[in-house]
Each structure stands twice: as C-alpha cells, then as structure tokens.
C-alpha cells in the first residue's frame, strides 16, 4: 500500500522509543495493552515537541505569524484525519478530547428542548438502542440521556461466541427508535461487528446510527462514507497519537441540525449579552481553545499509520491474532472470551485462567516478565456480567508487536499457573 517499504516489525519497533526501555529490576517491556492505549512513535513525539518549542500560538483567533502557523497545523491535521477516514468533507471532522466526549456530544444533541429537529427529539416512549458488548463510554451517555428525557434504553444481546445477537433486530429497532449506537470492534471480545444489517433496519424506521470506532480506526482501514452510518467516534491515544484528543465524525447535514453542546469562545459567530449565533461546523462544536498540539500530534500519527499502510497493519495483526489464539488455547484451563478464530475479529484476546484471578495473572506477568496486559472488566462490566465472570485478562496487539512477545506471554502464563498450582 502507498508503495511503502514492506512491513518490517523490527524497523517499526525502533520508531517507538518506549519499546526498548528497561523496566525497574531489569525487566524488558512486553507491551500487550494497546487496546487500552497505544505507544507513540518518535515521529509523533517530535512533531509535538517541535510545535511546542517553535510554532505554538492559539488558533483561529490570532493574526500573527505564530497564530497562523498553529492554525495551519491544526486545520491541516483536520484535513489529514478527514482523508484518513474518507470523510466527504473536512468540516465533518470535529476535534474532541476523547471518544467519550464524542459520544456524549451526540447524546446531548438529543432531547434538548431548544432544538426543534424531529430527529433529535427524545421523550418518554422513545427508544435508544445499544448492545451488551459496549464500552462504558457507549453505555453511560445513553443511560444519562434516558434518565434526563424519560426515554427507554434497550440493547442487543451477545451470543456465547461473543457475537452480536441480532435475531430480534426488527423488534429491537422499531418506529420508536431514535438512535442506535454500536461498537465497531469490541475492546474485550475483539469481535468486529458488521453494521450493514443493522443500518438497513435503522434506515427503514428512520432512526440514526452511530458507530463507536475507538478500536477499529486504529487497526484497519475505515471509510466513513462506505460505512454509511451517521456518526463515528474514535480517540487519538489508541492510534499512536497523543492523549487529550478525540474525533467525532458526523454527516454535515446532521451536525448542522444539532444544537451546540459546549458554549464558549471559537464556537460562536456573534455574541450579544442575551443571545448568540453560532459558527458553522466543525467550529460550532469546538468551544474554547482546542487541544492544538494534540491535534497536530494526531495528524502526525495518521501520517505515520498511512506510511506503514492500514491494510498492512491489519494483516500483521491478523497474523499475531491467529498465532495467539492457537498458542493460548493449548494452555490447560484457559478459556477465551470471544471468537476463537480470526474471522471478523481484531487483535484483542481476553481470557480467564481456571482458579486464578486475573489480577493475580496480570500482576505476576508484569512483576516477573514485564508483560503489560490489562486485567479487570476493561470498562465493559455488563459484558462480563453476561459471561458470569467478574474479570478477564486481556492481551491486545498492535503494529509493533511480535510473535516472540506472544511466546513470552504464553511462558508467563505457565509460570502463573505454577505459582498458584
């Protein structure tokens, strides 16, 4: 892709300074927690440093040289991200602080008494549909909306294999549905959901549809126009970008119809003491000084990912996932929560070890081998309740991971079993 050099994981690892770091006690770092947050390449870190040290100024407001340089870098980042996700217009890319804010922004557009657009009216009798495999960030905003407005929250169940159960799609999504918000790739199961059957039904009943793409945009080519949904949320820190920046993509026509969310500088056209008019999107939704350097860093992240090629990254992760699924299933007492084959799933593998609590698994992996995995409910407690377990251990892979690291994980798990044997 892009005529880039062939995928070379050792070369890629050199771009990430932290990967050659030693942990206290001389442990090497084996970072298998990118689903939680990814590491950053020098290209991103240096772009941010350089911007802070030589080009920083506030954006939008300043006419002077630094203000122009910052504004150009900030708006240039918007162009890059629009291109990266195939947005029909750059104005559809809104910078937020994280995926959570992106989802809340959309949730707060509903049931606002000031807004008269039918599509965003929500009250008792109206329904909002999510799923049992959502991250808390795609559950709680909708719970809060339901509480504020009296609407009803409903959800798709999950099958034993960790797939979305859409058997009752036609009943769940119906004339009372205002919005359906579903995760694109589960941060626990690894499952990649196919949005098309749901979207078809959503269109039939005249509802809107949002995708939480926090775990898909970093790991596979995502084209929002191709997806065809109305809103897509994702977050910078999971895609080799900095913390403090997220993205909401939305159809311009809908963004135009939505009321403002946060009020303040930059999101206005003109202000009087008793009323205001608002700037056109995307600025309408970017109140106050935005995460300037963070957006610039995310632009550099997108450049970096593109230079490697998203198809290549996906292929590499698929290889790792296949390797890991096979190796892990040979460990006695290990139960994978989620699909056991690489079909329609990403590089996130959650599991339990019989008789050993995930906290203990994670702690020993870290203490003894420097292996960073995540343990707990991964901000998806209802999904764990569904499987009747309080917690899992999760290994998640990215472009810089190797099969040797998976071997280390397997060795580590054997040791854990010995300690608790």
């Amino acid at each position, binding site marked *: 892709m892009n005529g880039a050099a062939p995928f070379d994981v050792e070369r890629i690892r050199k771009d990430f300074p932290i990967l050659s770091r030693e942990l206290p006690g001389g442990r090497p770092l084996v970072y298998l927690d990118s689903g939680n947050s990814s590491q950053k390449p020098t290209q991103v870190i240096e772009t941010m440093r350089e911007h802070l040290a030589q080009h920083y100024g506030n954006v939008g407001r300043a006419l002077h040289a630094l203000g122009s340089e910052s504004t150009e870098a900030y708006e240039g980042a918007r162009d890059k991200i629009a291109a990266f996700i195939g947005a029909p217009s750059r104005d559809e890319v809104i910078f937020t602080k994280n995926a959570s804010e992106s989802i809340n922004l959309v949730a707060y557009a509903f049931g606002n008494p000031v807004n008269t657009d039918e599509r965003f009216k929500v009250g008792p009798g109206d329904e909002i549909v999510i799923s049992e495999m959502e991250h808390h960030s795609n559950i709680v905003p909708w719970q809060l909306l339901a509480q504020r407005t009296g609407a009803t929250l409903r959800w798709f169940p999950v099958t034993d294999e960790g797939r979305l159960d859409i058997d009752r799609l036609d009943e769940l999504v119906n004339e009372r549905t205002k919005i359906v918000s579903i995760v694109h790739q589960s941060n626990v199961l690894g499952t990649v959901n196919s949005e098309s059957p749901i979207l078809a039904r959503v269109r039939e009943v005249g509802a809107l549809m949002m995708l939480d793409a926090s775990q898909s945009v970093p790991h596979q080519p995502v084209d929002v126009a191709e997806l065809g949904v109305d809103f897509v949320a994702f977050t910078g820190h999971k895609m080799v970008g900095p913390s403090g920046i997220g993205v909401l993509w939305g159809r311009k026509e809908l963004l135009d119809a939505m009321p403002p969310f946060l009020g303040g500088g930059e999101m206005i056209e003109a202000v009087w003491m008793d009323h205001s008019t608002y700037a056109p999107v995307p600025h309408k939704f970017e109140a106050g000084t935005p995460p300037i350097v963070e957006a610039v860093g995310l632009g550099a992240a997108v450049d970096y990912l593109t230079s490697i090629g998203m198809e290549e990254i996906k292929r590499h992760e698929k290889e790792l996932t296949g390797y890991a699924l096979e190796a892990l299933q040979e460990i006695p007492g290990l139960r994978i929560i989620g699909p056991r084959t690489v079909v329609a799933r990403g590089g996130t593998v959650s599991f339990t070890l019989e008789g050993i609590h995930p*906290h203990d698994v994670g702690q020993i992996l870290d203490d003894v081998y420097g292996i960073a995995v995540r343990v707990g409910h991964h901000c998806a407690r209802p999904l764990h309740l569904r499987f009747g377990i309080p917690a899992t251990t999760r290994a998640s892979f990215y472009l810089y991971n190797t099969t040797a690291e998976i071997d280390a994980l397997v060795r580590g798990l054997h040791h854990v079993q010995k300690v608790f044997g």
Partner: protein
Amino acid sequence: MYQELILEHYKHPQGRGLREPYDAEVHHVNPTCGDEVTMRVKLGDGGKVLDVSYDGQGCSISQAAASVLHELTTGSTVAETLSVVDEFTRLMQGRGQVEADEDVLGDAVAFAGVAKFPARVKCALLAWMAYKDALVRSQA
C-alpha cells in the same frame, strides 16, 4: 508482592466458611474488580472476639487478607484488633513509603509490598474494612 505467606493463605485459607453463632454479618464488594467478602463476627465477654468467619471470591490478595485477618483477630480483644486494623490501613495507604510495625501486624506484614500498587490496595483492605464494619454492627 506474592510473598510465600500470602500464597499459603490463599491456597489454604484459615477459618474460611460462614459459621454460627454470630452477632453481625456484612457483605463488602470492590466494584472495580469484583472482589467480594461476606464476614461474620461473634463477640464474647470482655470484648473478646470469639470468631470471625468469612467467605468470598477474588484475587489472592483479597482472599489471603481475609485468612490472615481471621488468624490475627480470633481470640484477641476488640481493642487489640482495632489497633491492628489501624496499622494495616496506615501501611496500605502509605504508597510504599510507610515502615510497617511488625509487632502490631504479625503475619499481616507480608502485605507491605502491596502498598506500592495503588490498584491492589483496595483488594488487601477489603476484608479489613468489612471486619471494621461488622464490629460496629455487632456492638450496635
């Protein structure tokens, strides 16, 4: 952090199981990680702790902590055990900067390493907080 003593208590919990008679029973949960403990306390004359019985599920730290607590409290007086609770809490919340008082803590000193891991401190404290709660209710 995984001291031999902790693993021993985890694999061979002392005094586990809920017993009769009891003055109070409490159920504590650590919502972030799902660790749970149910604890019963039976007090006797002169502030004697006659029995601390418990059941639960969770990580080795939370479960071993309950077992150690059973050993340290049963047979002591309420006043004595409260000073252990206080010292244990102080140790756990000390971010690894606090020197443990072995004379007061006894076997519980094995948990000192946990204090360096903020996320695990709650696991170690779960049973102890439940015990304190149960004492209050027993005496109420």
